[in-house]
């Protein structure tokens, strides 16, 4: 199985080197590509100096567009499985097998790494957990899919799902929408317990105002998806 690890990166110069080194150490048999989303710090310099395989986006596209670029790369290069691994160090590559194996064995089409199944490791702030739980219930009501960690970007998907996402992927705050979007396309989604860490450096791009907008926007999108028919596969 050819696996590509997509590492979106915007101004993560403090952590990107460690993220890639750790990945190469733990999973040298996986290919990877860092998507440099037009970073304004010295991320590009660090990537070039250390020979890190990367794609430079000419314009900032955000997490949706950045990861989608990775999906396009995966399809163009014939990968069987694509995985998202955040560039801030929150995702631990030691858990890659936990999300890749269910997809590789065909037990599901997309596997989301969830912090909240075993409740170990970094659990995120209280407000964020409330929000995540709300979205999780909403997705369950609108599609029947049960995923606890809806905003987790740590996920693996097979070639069919990856190809679908190259055509249709939410541009801002894509993670919860991607779950219900894939579900309405008839893809099987499962979850695997993983442990995450706090971000290793840099700043989060989410703040309270953005969070409120996030919740409203994503909730409306999820409700709208529930009105579209389900594709049979």
């Amino acid at each position, binding site marked *: 199985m050819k696996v590509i690890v997509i590492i979106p990166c915007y101004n993560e110069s403090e952590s990107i080197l460690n993220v890639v080194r750790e990945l190469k150490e733990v999973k040298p048999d996986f290919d990877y590509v860092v998507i440099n989303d037009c970073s304004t710090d010295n991320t590009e310099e660090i990537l070039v100096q250390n020979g890190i395989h990367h794609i430079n986006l*000419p314009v900032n596209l955000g997490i949706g567009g950045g990861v989608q670029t990775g999906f396009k790369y995966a399809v163009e290069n014939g990968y069987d499985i694509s995985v998202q691994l955040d560039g801030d160090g929150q995702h631990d590559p030691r858990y890659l097998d936990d999300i890749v194996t269910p997809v590789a064995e065909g037990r599901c089409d997309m596997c989301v790494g969830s912090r909240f199944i075993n409740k170990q490791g970094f659990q995120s702030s209280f407000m964020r957990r409330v929000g995540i739980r709300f979205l999780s219930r909403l997705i369950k009501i609108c599609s029947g899919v049960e995923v606890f960690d809806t905003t987790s970007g740590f996920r693996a998907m097979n070639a069919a799902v990856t190809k679908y996402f190259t055509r249709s992927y939410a541009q801002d705050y894509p993670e919860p929408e991607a779950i219900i979007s894939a579900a309405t396309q008839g893809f099987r989604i499962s979850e695997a317990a993983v442990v995450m860490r706090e971000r290793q450096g840099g700043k989060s791009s989410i703040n309270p105002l953005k969070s409120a907008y996030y919740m409203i*926007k994503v909730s*409306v*999108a999820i409700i*709208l998806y529930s009105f579209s028919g389900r594709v049979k596969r």
Partner: protein
Amino acid sequence: MDLALRIFLILSTVIYFVILLSMLRKGKFGLKYALIWLFMGIAMIVFIVFPNTVYAASRLIGVSNPVNAVFLVFALFSIIMLISVTASNSQLMEKNLRLSQNLALLEERVRRMEEESKK
């Protein structure tokens, strides 16, 4: 409020939502603008069902005829939307500019590589 007017407004709002939702499903809107139009639709429903809110608001801002107050609000809202859309347009133009330039520079690099590999 006049019953005929109420019925007309309710019908208009229903048609408005039908059109909006169908465009949304076809992906003709970014969700950000869709949200704005959706909330406007909800505000319209509130005004139709509770016209007293409109009467109170128009007295508050000093407009004697409530209908004029509604027009004023819609006009202001339209101006805000226009500002938002022109800002969005400017950002798109800037992205377009950068993309074009990057593409041109990339083309030169590829052409240079091709020429060098022919030697």
